[in-house]
């Protein structure tokens, strides 16, 4: 029987491009505060309302939270921080043992001059987007460990959606810390199928091009089995 997944933020910038890589192997329940412009049913769920998240998550095997608000002084906290707490609290209440979360990488501003970077410290700063996503990761980390919810957080700076992973592998340069859709789809599948996550919470760099020798995804390779085509 296929696993049932709840995708929150299904109408946003990321989820609609991840869905094609999941829909053949999973039953997807799409949800967003706004109707999805593409075809397909999408439940209306406001992540800032706990009862709505709880109701939507009933009966699913995993929650993928792609909801995000970037620059709004109030909604960034409500959607990103409170929303993450609602997701993890609902997962705990319903016995859901798997959550996938996303966040922006939190290091480029301070580390772009360095190389071979994997799992460096998070330096969010005070901007609404990066700070609230860092706080949301901490919320996920705390509740994942407390309630034994295997939780993965994918970090990336942007997406290079128009390219295939094979094309990127052969390129001479590509934006740092960007990931193509195929690779993010692969990472989601791996995160959904891996038996357990060490310490119940891990964050992973997600990127599709390693030519600069700057950022790497060694941890994702080591723990999730994330693979890239050879250049």
């Amino acid at each position, binding site marked *: 029987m296929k696993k049932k997944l709840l995708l929150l933020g299904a109408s946003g910038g990321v989820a609609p491009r991840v869905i094609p890589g999941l829909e053949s192997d999973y039953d997807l329940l799409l949800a967003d505060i706004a109707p999805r412009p593409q075809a397909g049913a999408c439940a209306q769920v406001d992540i800032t309302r706990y009862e709505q998240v709880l109701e939507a998550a009933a009966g699913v095997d995993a929650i993928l939270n792609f909801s995000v608000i970037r620059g709004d002084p109030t909604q960034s906290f*409500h959607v990103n921080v409170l929303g993450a707490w609602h997701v993890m609290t609902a997962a705990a209440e319903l016995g859901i043992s798997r959550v996938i979360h996303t966040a922006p990488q939190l290091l480029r501003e301070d580390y772009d001059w360095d190389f071979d970077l994997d799992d460096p410290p998070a330096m969010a700063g005070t901007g609404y987007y990066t700070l609230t996503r860092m706080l949301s990761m901490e919320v996920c980390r705390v509740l994942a460990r407390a309630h034994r919810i295997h939780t993965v957080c994918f970090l990336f700076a942007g997406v290079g959606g128009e390219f295939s992973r094979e094309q990127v592998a052969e390129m001479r340069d590509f934006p740092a810390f960007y990931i193509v859709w195929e690779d993010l789809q692969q990472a989601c599948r791996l995160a959904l199928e891996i038996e357990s996550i060490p310490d119940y919470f891990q964050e992973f760099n997600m990127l599709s091009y390693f030519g600069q020798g700057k950022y790497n995804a060694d941890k994702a390779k080591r723990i999730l089995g994330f693979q890239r085509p050879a250049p």
Partner: protein
Amino acid sequence: MRILITSAASPMARAVAAELKDDHQLRLLDDDPALETGEEEVGEVVRGSLLDADAVWQAVRGMDAVVHTAEPPAAPKTGNQDSMAKQQFMLDWATRGTHILFQAAVETGVRRFVYGSTLEIFSSYPEDVYISELWKPRPGPEMPAMSRYLGELVCREFARDFPVTATALRLGRIVIEEEVEGQRPDAMWLDRRDAAQAFHLALNRDRGDDLRFTARWALYHICADIPNPRFLIDSARTIGYRPEHNFHKQWKA
């Protein structure tokens, strides 16, 4: 200095105000009506919530320092008062409210922040370890401690981004020594008067001009000075912290 104290109606904030009032000019911020009685002798009373950006901006204007005690207020009197609503409010207050406060403070030229965090974030560690500021916080999901930890992270990021001195005091379990006589001692106990002393001392830190973030930002563990302690206060001693209420009767017994 001109100092703003948040959650001013709380017992912790009142103790801080009593400690500071002879040496500094105080402004007391809270939306709790209990603040208004008899506080005028201590400082200027300003009514408002941390979640009201306009009220906060007015409160921080003209201040040199902010003491954010982070003592959680009661949830709003209107609306749902169930556990979920209270936890949602506490999370929002600790994260967004702290951001509103410090953002307004840096915009109005405040250069010193002191934040009241908690040692409860180490509760999950075993009893037989010595926990210094170098230990990784592992807060549980209980909202009072977790939200306070998240507020500490917000405070830290302001020290990273701005030329301000930010100091977080991870406070033990607040008690009054005379009120816990006869009780089984707790390694996390901290007398409220000693906590107030720590806030006073933290205000003396002035590293906002230092180019190093790690100098602008500091963390101190604050609890009683007891034999064979669980929480090490050696770092706090470097700013002059000398607790006077150390529960000797219980620890000698």
